[in-house]
């Protein structure tokens, strides 16, 4: 009985409103926190992590109501596997080089300097694969020389930002929205248009969601509504 009581306690949220669980890429932490606090008709619970980790959870049977990823690849895959509704593209982001304000890095070539400490995303997360896409577009062996300066492959964007703001690294590839969120602690070095990857965010309703209607409303609200406004304010673009 004690066990049952403990489990009941752990599962009890304390709210009468229907609970809507949203798994979202960690790069959307601030805007989604802001816009979903008074989502109509449901008590929104946000779970932030790397998009790949959230997808792995869904594949292993964890059922949030909404999945919002920092790319279209993972939602498309889940959709093909019958685990997610048709994904909706709702925002774009921009990959930039983030550096401390006093840095003299001005362009990607500067990242190839010997001894520069670079921190990037792990190959398995969207930020990491976008980064490698950019590096592969650089002329000659520049991309390889930059990759040789990588000191950590972080499992999500927050790890890259933390290394930069703590002074452990000299530069990193992050989204422009992360630089905005870091305030004056980081500066963005923009990439030229021919290097810039298409960073498209997509979301869908998880098959078997407990609140399919509310989940659909939440996904729609990402393109048009309070969450869309919050995303725009945080620096995300419209698709």
């Amino acid at each position, binding site marked *: 009985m004690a*066990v049952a009581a403990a489990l009941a306690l752990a599962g009890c949220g304390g709210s009468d409103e229907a609970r809507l669980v949203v798994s979202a890429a960690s790069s959307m932490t601030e805007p989604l926190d802001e816009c979903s606090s008074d989502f109509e008709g449901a008590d929104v619970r946000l779970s932030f992590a*790397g998009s*790949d*980790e959230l*997808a*792995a959870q869904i*594949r*292993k049977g964890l059922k949030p109501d909404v999945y919002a990823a920092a790319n279209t690849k993972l939602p498309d895959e889940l959709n093909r596997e019958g685990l997610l509704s048709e994904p909706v593209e709702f925002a774009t982001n921009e990959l930039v080089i983030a550096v401390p304000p006093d840095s003299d890095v001005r362009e990607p070539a500067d990242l190839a300097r010997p001894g520069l*400490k670079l*921190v990037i995303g*792990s*190959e*398995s*997360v969207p930020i990491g694969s976008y980064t490698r896409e950019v590096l592969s577009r650089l002329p000659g062996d520049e991309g390889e020389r930059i990759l040789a300066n*990588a*000191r*950590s*492959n*972080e*499992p999500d964007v927050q*790890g890259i930002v*933390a*290394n930069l703001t*703590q*002074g*452990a*690294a000299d530069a990193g590839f992050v989204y422009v929205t992360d630089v905005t969120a870091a305030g004056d602690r980081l500066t963005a070095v923009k990439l030229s248009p021919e290097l810039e990857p298409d960073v498209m965010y997509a979301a869908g309703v998880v098959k078997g969601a407990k609140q399919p209607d509310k989940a659909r409303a939440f996904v729609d609200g990402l393109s048009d509504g309070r969450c869309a406004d919050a995303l725009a304010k945080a620096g995300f673009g419209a698709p």
Partner: protein
Amino acid sequence: MRRAFPVLLALALAVALTFLTVPIVAIFVDSSPAELIDSLGDPGALDALWLSLRATAMALALILIVGTPAAYLLATRTFRGKSFVVTLVELPLVLPPAVAGIALLAAVGPSGILGGAVEAAGIELSLQTAGVVVALTFVASPFYIRQAMASFAAVDRTLLDASRTLGASEARGFLRVMIPTAMPGLVAGTALALGRALGEFGATLMFAGSFRGITQTVPLAIYDRLGTDFESALALSAVLVAISAGVLLSVKLVHGSGALGGATG
């Protein structure tokens, strides 16, 4: 009524045993031996294993060299504020790994309160193997020191006193009498610290980062593979379980089942 209590005890054990073993069994059921060996052929996995073993060995060396005399002092002396000191030593035991990570960053990270001094000494910790060793040492040393204290305290003091009356210095008595007599407990403490260090995740990731061959230990490699390669994540987990179980078992076999019970104190 008289019969009900033993049945209840047995039931409690059955529940505890099932709850604790099913997840571990699942690791081995979900990955066939062939897959296991296959995914160990992945060079990244081998790098992670090798790094984990190296960093753990270095952390254990530091823990034993500093922790053994420190534990001896705490076990054999009484002084004002001793229980406060013991609490400080034990604190990392109950610290969440994420707290340990951020505490290390705030202390010896590049912009931490001692970061300048560390840098001035020519030591680079963040994003380096040395940082992994620091993280492992921080989280694992209380496991050893606690057990070593209990073992030293349990040694019959007349042995040490006898060696002193025979003219041996305290240092000699410590090396020749205390350490050999307390050995089973010291070995058990080492095994506990080894298990903790091998499994360390949060503090390592936050303080040292994750890079193949440099800072990506086995737990970090498991996390990195979670999204893309669940099978190889499982296989690496199986290896960690096997190593930890092996250490635990060999300690029990060598020193009897009491060695890891903590009952020595």
